[in-house]
């Protein structure tokens, strides 16, 4: 009888990937947890609070992350990408490219002494460009693993300069300029794909003025604005640094074009309203929506509680945002086809939840199917199983969903992965 390989490969170390790897590791399995970024935690760690109970996201996730880091069975591979997979369920061989970090995880103690001397300053994409970072950086305070990486795309050394600023500031020989991309091969019995999502680019829906007007923000930008560990330490402000007197929350940006409801936007925009009321006394909040989607037992209560604080809700079509003297002006057609217009200081858009750009690539490597939207396709009555045996999909890689759904999918996928690799 052919022996099955009991190890498990998990691609994507966001909430779903973390949950799946903890479950597999608890069962005593070796887990390779792949993460493209130098940090892990996915999109969830960008939030300050989580609806409907407005719990602190870091408090929820950090213990899980430490569990991953401390678990002997889990090998977290940051800056890593899947290159190739061969074999079949019970016996896959995966080739993984480990990008050079240029910082030794063994030696680095996370003191952060290297940031200041680095002469390069670029937009911090983790913070949606709201703050700057150096070429050697960590995504945000508290990001894990607590060690920086050098972004060679911007490092002066890449341009041939012999800058040694970070190396000289490091007392622990943690900077490895000659670090190389490496390839490793792992043998596993099952694979779980949890590559997550990205927010759609709102600038393609030109009527919203995103990227055109400075105070039109996309959801994550607003989220980071509110984050205690974010660029403004949690102060919500317009680009000129003053708190906005009025904020408009725009639902369903790009839904029609995409052809599906992203499920989470109605609720996270409600959460944004809560942020605004909480942080800016007297702020006016408008929401422009088409259909309200707040499924689930706890959510309506949350929605109504926040509504009570005075959200001005407008069912609207044909929204157009323009810049006016006093700020931004929203022109719209309401539910009864009447035109209206409202001036606000800040607009927050809820663009569609889209498959992570990596997903297509992963699908190709794994030889699994995508659906019409580019999400990974799953089986009827087994919504986490791909069309290829031994490969499972959890989280937003398969469909936009809530955190709790990502968690249950991860648990489901982990269970099936454990089962299939059982002798």
């Amino acid at each position: 009888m052919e022996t099955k390989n009991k190890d498990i490969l998990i691609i994507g170390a966001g909430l779903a990937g973390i949950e799946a790897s903890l479950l597999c590791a608890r069962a005593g399995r070796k887990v390779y947890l792949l993460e493209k970024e130098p940090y892990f935690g996915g999109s969830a760690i960008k939030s300050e609070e989580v609806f409907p109970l407005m719990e602190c996201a870091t408090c929820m996730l950090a213990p899980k992350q430490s569990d991953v880091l401390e678990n002997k069975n889990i090998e977290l591979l940051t800056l890593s990408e899947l290159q190739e997979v061969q074999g079949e369920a019970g016996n896959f061989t995966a080739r993984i490219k480990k990008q050079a970090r240029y910082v030794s995880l063994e030696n680095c103690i996370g003191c952060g002494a290297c940031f200041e001397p680095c002469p390069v300053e670029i937009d911090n994409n983790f913070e949606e460009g709201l703050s700057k970072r150096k070429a050697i950086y960590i995504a945000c305070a508290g990001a894990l693993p607590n060690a920086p990486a050098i972004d060679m795309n911007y490092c002066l050394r890449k341009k041939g300069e012999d800058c040694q600023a970070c190396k000289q500031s490091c007392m622990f020989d943690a900077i490895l300029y000659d670090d190389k991309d490496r390839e490793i091969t792992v043998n596993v019995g099952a694979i779980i794909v949890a590559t997550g999502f990205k927010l759609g680019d709102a600038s393609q829906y030109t009527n919203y003025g995103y990227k055109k007007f400075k105070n039109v923000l996309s959801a994550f930008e607003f989220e980071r604005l509110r984050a205690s560990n974010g660029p403004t330490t949690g102060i919500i402000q317009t680009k000129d640094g003053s708190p906005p007197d009025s904020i408009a929350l725009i639902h369903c940006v790009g839904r029609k074009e995409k052809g599906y409801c992203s499920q989470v936007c109605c609720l996270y925009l409600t959460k944004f309203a809560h942020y605004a009321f909480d942080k800016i006394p007297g702020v006016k909040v408008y929401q422009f929506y088409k259909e309200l989607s707040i499924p689930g037992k706890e959510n309506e209560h949350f929605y109504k509680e926040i509504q009570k604080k005075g959200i001005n809700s407008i069912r609207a079509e044909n929204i157009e945002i323009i810049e006016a003297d006093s700020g931004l002006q929203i022109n719209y057609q309401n539910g009864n086809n009447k035109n209206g217009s409202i001036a606000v200081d800040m607009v927050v858009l809820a663009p569609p939840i889209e498959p992570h750009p990596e997903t297509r690539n992963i699908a190709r490597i794994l030889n699994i199917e995508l659906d019409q939207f580019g999400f990974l396709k799953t089986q009827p009555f087994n919504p986490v199983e791909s069309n290829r045996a031994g490969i499972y999909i959890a989280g937003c890689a398969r469909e936009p969903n809530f955190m709790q759904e990502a968690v249950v999918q991860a648990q489901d996928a982990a269970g099936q992965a454990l089962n299939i690799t059982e002798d």
Partner: protein
Amino acid sequence: MQTEPTIIGFLCNWCSYAAADLAGNSKLEVPGNLTTIRVMCSSRVDPVFILNAYFQGADGVLVAGCHPGDCHYQTGNYYARRRLALLIKILQTFDIEPKRLRLSWISASEGQRFSEITQEFAKFIKEAGPNPLKKKPFFE
């Protein structure tokens, strides 16, 4: 010897201790006279710990835990709140320096807030002057 006020902070492991770590990581300033005791949950803080600290001359006591609803153990901080409210009420009734005890909710991401709260508290305590019990003979 030590002229600075003494402030003791009880921090819950999951939120406030993490916030303190984050404050350190972010090199935010936190008063040097605050020394912290890690407990697993704010509900572990027995009010008698605080009484003991008071009577032995602590100038301030800070108890910090997860925000209500965020408790790692579901409901611990609600119990903590009741216990400390009771203690504060007793101290208030006898007017024995109730303000030297503070109950704050600080989440794991609020390193900045940790820094602000502790600095503000330390400033308050400094202005309030030393705990009168510190040098009071025979009270205890």
